[in-house]
């Protein structure tokens, strides 16, 4: 297996696809949406190859390329798999989404062209962030995701989407700048610890020599890094871009952002955590992450309580799940870290399905207000069913993998004892609150009788005469045309379920990945 190829392809191929889209232009020779699947499949394939090699070799022997600039260990493999899977869902759902946008008159050839180019560039940036072993490049890649997605968030050019884009870029840039400051400080500490310039930002080197880093400087650096990457991961205090951006971005982009961008940023924190724990002992990051996690969770739960917009609702739910992941990282035992990684995967899959389905709902109803959507299950049983299943998965019910990871998280939390046990208990209560809010709002949208066709009529369906039998079969049949658009969602749900029941060959790579960031 060619290490360089495997490590380069995940970032390069999406970039090439983006270039191909850009070159093909908007004319007759333009690429179809399904060409986007190439990126996703390549990422998945590379992730799988890496997983095989990571599982085969000892955890200490990752593959490298370009003098360690690119580096593949089990965590890389796991994150690539997640990115690939979510990208597959998002890219799979893209053609139908764009068709809907065109039908609604909100998309032109030019915006579609730009959409494709930017999405694949976005994927490339995320993959780069995942496969690099250099913390500086990691920062550059994460910042690049902000830049690339800015115009995806603001693609509609309406007041709200421009507003969202502005907030997104300003807040994320500020946050990520702090992360850069942190990186610089770590670099400073590393240089002072006698690490050569070329290796002072190399993650494995830093991990190996972390005990020589100056604690005070490292502490400052880690604080800034957690704040900074936490911004992109949707953690407080610089979290506020998230609901705005997620609610305004196109549904597949929201899926990508919520499903993997957050966790890619969080993976960066996970990598730094290893260094910090070795340099400072576990107490510092534990307190920091646990505090941030609980604050984020409380905020998300509070804002879910009175939420009126379903895409924002899903966004806050992302914050909720990222805070759980952060809590797991704070706990930091192997079980907790495994749970965190599984949670990242499960959340990515479920949330991307939820966002893609919500995009369909938006097309169908023309509004993102929860209060104006009624009886979705009666109108479009399959789409709404997918949304419902995804929300159920997000609520943490078995057989979806989020249940397994939340369960393991709670066990690990109580096993850790002391303040962390309390934190876990508080987190569970907050999750309950969030669940209540999510369940109440989703059920309001999904359940109930078919509403009288309001502004946007359901195609090819006459309002049934009162009293006449309105069997669900009928509406299911009318949705047959949706089938092609729905397979990515079904795949996502199936994957989420499968992860929740049996990891299969992924168990090895998951545990190896947790071991990679478990440090001790």
């Amino acid at each position: 297996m060619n290490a360089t190829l495997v490590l380069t392809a995940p970032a390069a191929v999406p970039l090439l696809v983006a270039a191909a889209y850009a070159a093909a232009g908007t004319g007759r020779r333009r690429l179809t949406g399904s060409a986007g699947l190439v990126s996703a499949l390549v990422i998945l394939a590379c992730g799988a190859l890496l997983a095989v090699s990571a599982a085969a070799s000892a955890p200490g022997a990752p593959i490298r390329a370009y003098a360690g600039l690119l580096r593949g260990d089990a965590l890389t493999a796991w994150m690539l798999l997640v990115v690939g899977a979510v990208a597959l869902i998002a890219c799979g759902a893209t053609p139908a989404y764009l068709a809907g946008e065109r039908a609604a008159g909100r998309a032109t050839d030019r915006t579609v062209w730009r959409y494709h180019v930017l999405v694949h560039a976005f994927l490339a940036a995320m993959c780069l962030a995942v496969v690099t072993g250099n913390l500086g490049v990691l920062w550059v890649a994460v910042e690049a995701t902000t830049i690339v997605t800015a115009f995806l968030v603001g693609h509609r050019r309406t007041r709200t989407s421009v507003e969202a884009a502005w907030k997104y870029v300003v807040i994320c840039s500020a946050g990520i700048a702090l992360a850069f400051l942190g990186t610089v400080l770590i670099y400073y500490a590393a240089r002072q610890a006698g690490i050569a310039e070329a290796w002072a930002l190399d993650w494995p080197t830093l991990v190996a020599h972390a005990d020589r880093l100056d604690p005070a400087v490292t502490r400052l650096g880690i604080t800034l890094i957690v704040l900074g990457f936490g911004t992109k991961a949707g953690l407080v205090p610089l979290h506020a871009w998230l609901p705005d951006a997620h609610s305004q971005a196109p549904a597949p982009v929201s899926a990508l952002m919520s499903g993997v961008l957050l966790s890619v940023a969080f993976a960066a924190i996970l990598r730094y955590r290893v260094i910090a724990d070795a340099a400072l002992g576990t107490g510092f990051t534990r307190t920091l992450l646990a505090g941030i996690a609980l604050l984020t969770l409380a905020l998300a739960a509070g804002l879910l309580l009175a939420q009126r917009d379903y895409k924002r609702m899903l966004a806050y739910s992302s914050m909720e799940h990222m805070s759980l992941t952060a809590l797991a990282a704070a706990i930091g035992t192997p079980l907790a870290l495994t749970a965190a990684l599984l949670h990242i995967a499960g959340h990515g899959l479920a949330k991307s399905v939820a966002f893609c389905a919500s995009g369909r709902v938006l097309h169908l109803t023309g509004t993102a207000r929860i209060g104006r959507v009624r009886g979705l299950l009666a109108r479009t049983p399959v789409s709404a069913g997918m949304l419902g299943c995804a929300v159920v998965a997000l609520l943490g019910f078995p057989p979806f993998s989020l249940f397994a990871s939340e369960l393991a998280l709670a066990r690990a939390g109580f096993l850790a004892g002391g303040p962390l046990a309390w934190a876990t208990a508080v987190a569970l209560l907050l999750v309950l609150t969030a669940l209540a809010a999510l369940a109440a709002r989703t059920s309001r949208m999904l359940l109930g009788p078919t509403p009288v066709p309001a502004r946007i009529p359901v195609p090819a369906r006459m309002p049934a005469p009162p009293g006449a039998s309105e069997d669900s079969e009928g509406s299911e049949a009318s949705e047959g045309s949706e089938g092609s658009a729905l397979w990515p969602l079904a795949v996502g749900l199936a994957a989420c379920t499968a992860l929740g029941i049996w990891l299969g060959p992924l168990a090895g790579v998951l545990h190896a990945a947790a071991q990679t960031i478990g440090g001790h």
Partner: protein
Amino acid sequence: MSAIPVALATATGLGGAGALAALVVPHRARVPLVGALTAGVGAAGAAVGVTALTGTHWSAEFPNVLPLGGTYLAVDALAGWFMTIAGAVVTAVAVYGVGYAAGRPARRPAPECRAPGPGVPGPGVRGLGSRGAQAVLPLFALSLLLVPVAASVSTFLALWEAMALGSLLLVLADHRERPAVRRAGVWYAVMTHLGLVLLLTGFALFAADAGGETFAALRAGAHTLSPGVRGLVFVLVALAFTSKAGAVPLHTWLPRAYPEAPDPVSALMSATMVNLGVYGLVRTGFDLLGGGTAWWWLGVLALGGLSAVYGVLQAAMASDLKRLVAYSSSENMGLVLIGVGASGLFAAHGDRPQAALALAAALLHVVNHSAFKALLFCAAGSVVRATGLRDLDRLGGLRARMPWTAGLFALGALGAVALPPGNGFVSEWLLLQSLIHGLRVPGVAVAVVLPLSVALVALSAGIAAAAFVKALGVGFFARPRDERAAAAREAPPLMLVGAGLLAVGVVALAVAPGLFADGLGRAVSAATGPTGGGAPRGGGELGVRLADVSARMSPLWVVAALTAATLLAAGLPRLLARRRRRRVHARLWDCGGGAPTPRMAYTATSFAEPLQRVFDDVLAPEQDVDITPVRESAYLVDRVRFQRSVPDRIEHRLYEPVLRGLDRAGRAARRLANGSVHLYLGYGFAGLVVLLLALTTGW
């Protein structure tokens, strides 16, 4: 030995096949096929249970199934007891469900009756017969059977939540008919998740201190826990389990979810799912935590007593047939909890035989409750399906139009009122015996609590009688109060067969409870451990020996004697009467004012009025009298509107403040995201400054 895994695998396979079949098979064949497969699941589960009750143990582990936890399974007699119940009920209800969901309802209510309104439910046919609901049904049945098999925290919680999810989805099946379904579903989802949080916290604490999460490890490590942690674990877990069992104060999901669920689902939930709350409590309290101290069980007793009386009072007040039956579940689970609590109390005082007796009473009541409650819900479901009505004030006269259904309901009601020769009486008798004889257990707490428990059991039995006299007398007897009730037709044969199977169980339990004694004994000793240690005749087949209890009761004798006496009493006057005449029909006494109309008949509400007045302080009914005078004079009344409702007071006092608080918090939280970039960036700036300050001040 190999029977259990084979049967378990069969059940799992059938469940999966059922779900799959529901998704792919066309509508016409779907319901019968899924019903058959579900019945198969139940039968296989019952087979496992019965095998386990003969004393066979089995365990297995699949560490790779369920990531990060692994799946550990074990079957013992205690699990077998609950599996047998669940399997039997699932089988019968599956048969019933086929008749229920297949085809069209006997009479579709007029369109205006389908207008959303709490008292006017539509037929549940579309809901339960739909593809999604049919796919969930076998899986739900499977999860009901598998919960007792779980032998590790993760496995247990996964199956527990799967069961909760299954029931939740099935409760929602009728969401297109009634808006109340959605509200009920949300309540249920939240309450069940609250239960999960409690369970998870409790079990995770337990596992953390015991050093392992398999039940074997918990059992082994339970004694290493400090008393405080043990108590905390028990309180958390007990709250969750009693919530699932429908005990106060976490019962609010129950009276909402049961009435709104499709009727077979109500039957399944009330007859099997609530039991698993008891199972969890017994498994954790006795088996895993190994008994515990007296105050745990005093708490359980208190909850049980409170639930019993509160539940039955609400049942007596309810004028919704399904709500009445649902609250009766609260009552019966309260009785079971009294038994369980008493058992734990005795065990904590070291009297194991007495503890075994109380636990046996509780477990016997569990099975009795399952039998009659499933029967009641099936019969009530037939009524709802035939009339589209749940409101007792509109029903009536069904005994003439739905004789079989009425008979089945009467049989179930006889069990529910705990009077001989009903099956409920057998277990309540045993429960009372265990309480009465528990007084020899030393301890002032025992001496105070037991008489009160006896009184509460008695009071709940008395009020239950009133409640079911109401349900039966107002709902099925007399004359129809509504045209829909008047036009009801008997349920289709499959529904009757399904309910009939349950009726057979009820009768068997009523006349020959001894048939179940062996299994009961094993189940009890599986929970409390070898109980004969201190008793003189330990080591016997039952392992439970009781000194000093010489009371006996022979249900069969009572039934025989009653039958003979009734026949005699009915026959002798005829012989004595000199002139044998045919019965003559006559008009009812009408006080000379013309034939009484159905509107003059006593309604359920009026029936409950005296009891409501007696328990005014407990129930706190809300009355609203609205007098509209004639325009010309304030003394001449034009119209009087009188409204009274008996709200769930616990809900009022306990939940509404919480809900209001959350609502306020949500509104307040909105201000945190008011759209201002300055504010958003300010969060970050403040966070940064605070953290930097913290760092400089030496954190």
